[in-house]
């Protein structure tokens, strides 16, 4: 049987079915029909609204190595206090709220969705759940205990900067040097330079592996030149903060810059 004949037959069947269905419909009282239509419309609206909500990026993701002070910053942003301190997180802290520093401001202020993703390396896959909705990423670095952790932090940052969801959407990134209230803390310029150097080295070793690694599909910087953060497709800035003393104005600025009130 050639295809056109087959098609004709299908068409016949379809029109027959349609007629049967219409016949059936005529027997159904109109109130039931309206109710059914209302339900269909309602569910589609519900689904669509959910999808739209998902797509909108107003999330700020706090990330960084374990012990750099993400949870403290999260609670500083939310409540303006660290309460009785924190321990290593096992789950992300997540909340939609008006920043504590802005609660006294007049006028309507839009709430921000902030997620604090645990830094423990076993929990890093969680990050991928939040990155697609991120309007900005804050990479928290421990400025006090920086040098021993420099390599691990740089590796994590490298992974972050080469993530598809970050590169494609050009998500702005803030390198936040935490714990600067302590005297021995390193400056943000120093940390920036060290991390650039470290990432430069990583580039050579990672590009060798990246062919095998599916996660690192993008390379960083310009080949042949020493790496700087300005070469990234997304905007990378540095700032200082102190979670314990509540000195987080630069962080709040960053958040407000990227999540418009």
């Amino acid at each position: 049987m050639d295809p056109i004949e087959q098609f004709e037959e299908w068409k016949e069947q379809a029109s027959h079915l349609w007629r049967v269905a219409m016949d059936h419909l005529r027997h159904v009282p109109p109130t039931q029909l309206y109710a059914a239509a209302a339900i269909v419309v309602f569910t589609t609206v519900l689904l669509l609204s959910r999808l739209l909500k998902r797509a909108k990026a107003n999330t700020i993701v706090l990330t960084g190595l374990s012990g750099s002070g993400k949870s403290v910053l999260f609670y500083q942003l939310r409540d303006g206090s660290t309460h009785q301190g924190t321990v290593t997180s096992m789950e992300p802290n997540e909340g939609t709220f008006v920043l504590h520093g802005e609660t006294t401001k007049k006028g309507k202020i839009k709430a921000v969705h902030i997620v604090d993703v645990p830094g423990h390396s076993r929990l890093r896959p969680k990050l991928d759940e939040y990155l697609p909705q991120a309007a900005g990423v804050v990479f928290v670095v421990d400025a006090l205990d920086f040098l021993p952790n420099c390599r691990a932090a740089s590796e994590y940052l490298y992974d972050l900067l080469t993530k598809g969801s970050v590169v494609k959407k050009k998500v702005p990134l803030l390198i936040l040097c935490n714990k600067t209230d302590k005297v021995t803390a390193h400056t943000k310029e120093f940390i920036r330079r060290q991390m650039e150097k470290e990432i430069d080295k990583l580039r050579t070793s990672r590009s060798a592996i990246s062919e095998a690694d599916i996660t690192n599909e993008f390379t960083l910087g310009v080949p042949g030149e020493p790496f700087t953060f300005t070469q990234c497709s997304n905007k990378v800035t540095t700032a200082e903060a102190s979670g314990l003393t509540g000195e987080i104005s630069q962080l709040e600025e960053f958040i407000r810059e990227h999540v418009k009130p």
Partner: protein
Amino acid sequence: MLEQLLIFTRGGLILWTCNELGNALKGSPIDTLIRSCLLEERSGAASYNYDVPGASYTLKWTFHNELGLVFVAVYQRILHLLYVEDLLAMVKREFSQVYDPKRTVYNDFDETFRQLKVEALARAEDLKKSNPVVRPVGGNNGKKQGQGNNKSGLEGGNKTKSEGGLKDDGSADGNNNKGDDNKGRKLENGYSNGNFVVTKDSNVDSNVNGRVNASSGNGAFDVNKLQKLRSKGSKKTDIVPKASKADPNKKATKKNRVWDDTPVEKKLDFTDNAGEDGDRKIDFVAPVQGESMMDKEEIISSESEDEEEEDDVGKKNKPSAKNKGWFSSMFQSIAGKANLEKSDLEPALKALKDRLMTKNVAEEIAEKLCESVAASLEGKKLASFTRISSTAHAAMEEALVRILTPKRSIDILRDVHASKEQRKPYVVVFVGVNGVGKSTNLAKVAYWLLQHNVSVMMAACDTFRSGAVEQLRTHARRLQIPIFEKGYEKDPAVVAKEAIQEATRNGSDVVLVDTAGRMQDNEPLMRALSKLIYLNNPDLVLFVGEALVGNDAVDQLSKFNQKLGDLSPSSNPRLIDGILLTKFDTIDDKVGAALSMVYISGSPVMFVGCGQSYTDLKKLNVKSIVKTLLK
């Protein structure tokens, strides 16, 4: 004496600490507990020991999964506090009643805690008295002291049950109305004060011992043993249902693993080449070609596997659904079940455990994993339109991904470059039992490194088995890399040392040290290995294990680690840093050894050997392993 009791959320915010205990802890036992125990799927264990110079603590914990709370108690290891578990359970019960996600300060819980502690102490005391099993224990110091100062406290403990005036301070407002169901909290005024002094005394445990001693006249009581007895008993009851027959549906789907097909290249037989002219004739005839599979992408047909998985789950679930009746299970799945209990989880977890075991995961590990998953699910609310089995399945999948995700960077090339800057060679020692393929995979690693422009040197430190040096020499000639050898009957530690010196001289970046295979129980050989590692302080100790191994994987790795630790002359011994899994092409879907090894050692799988040619070296694909394990 209890050192500290904390209540915190899974997000890491401390909600309440016991101020009155308020002892400054040495080190950071809580963070260490979370990082190395709770996050490593070891939360099914009963307790965790933490050592720092100057203190050694034991930590016990319990979860409230519905509210996402964690309760941790810290106490000195030397004291075996019997009441801690009881106390934690009570604190959990009480705190969950006052907990409110929006509240972050719970100062009024202090008073409740004080009472709970008194109650727990008293109950532990009762338990001890009623228990007839009393074993003599030597060296019960502090006995006299205990008898001396504790009379009043213990008497108070007995009085708890007698009706007394309800002591309840105004601050614990929520408790007034609950007084009825907590008869244990009815305390005498004087008693609660009196006993308080006793608890502040640093010597609760010895007190307790002293008392029992006095009443039975039989010798002191070993709390440890009692606990062990009890846990044994409970374990037995656990095992009984599990021993029932296996699920018949399990073997429904099994699929051949498809590995990257590589060009079968080169003959492995070079005997005729080297044959007549002896070692002098170097065969440049077949310089090895082809890219190491470390650098190739792996394509997994994930969709088909996914489908199968779902199918499987569906099949599995049917019998359990039938038992409960179609309607009620349907209703449950729509409405969502209130709270998951252990008994609800048991069938699903048993199925999971069996499935893991058919994939060659060691039984002990499958058991522990299931316990840990149960601990993380118990008390949780089941979401609507989900089934228990799928919830358990998802939790297990998450746990498996977490375990197999490397904790530390496995970027060896980066490390090689780092040590290159310091102008010293990067030393890798291959260890393992006999015949797992140490030399073969050493050559594969060498080949992979060569491809990334790293100069490699081999060190033949297998001075034990005849032919080992020649085998390595053949590899070296094929790969055209230098080899350091000193023949047989030499101390391997010394050979390795000289090899490293030689590498420093001629500027090699990496030294790959081949060692003799040894059984984990062979103490002289293990001692030699420990010496080799101690003397040369390698950058990476790579355990080579074959993927064929089942229950023995646990034994091998734990004994290797333990022996390396025990037999090392240094106080801070080097343990195994990474795993090289060999013969991965022979095991079809029984990939359980990967999980067993990673779980036991806590170190990542760095390479996977999956064939006979030099290119057959890959990275572990965590996702595909997890998928295969749960298939």
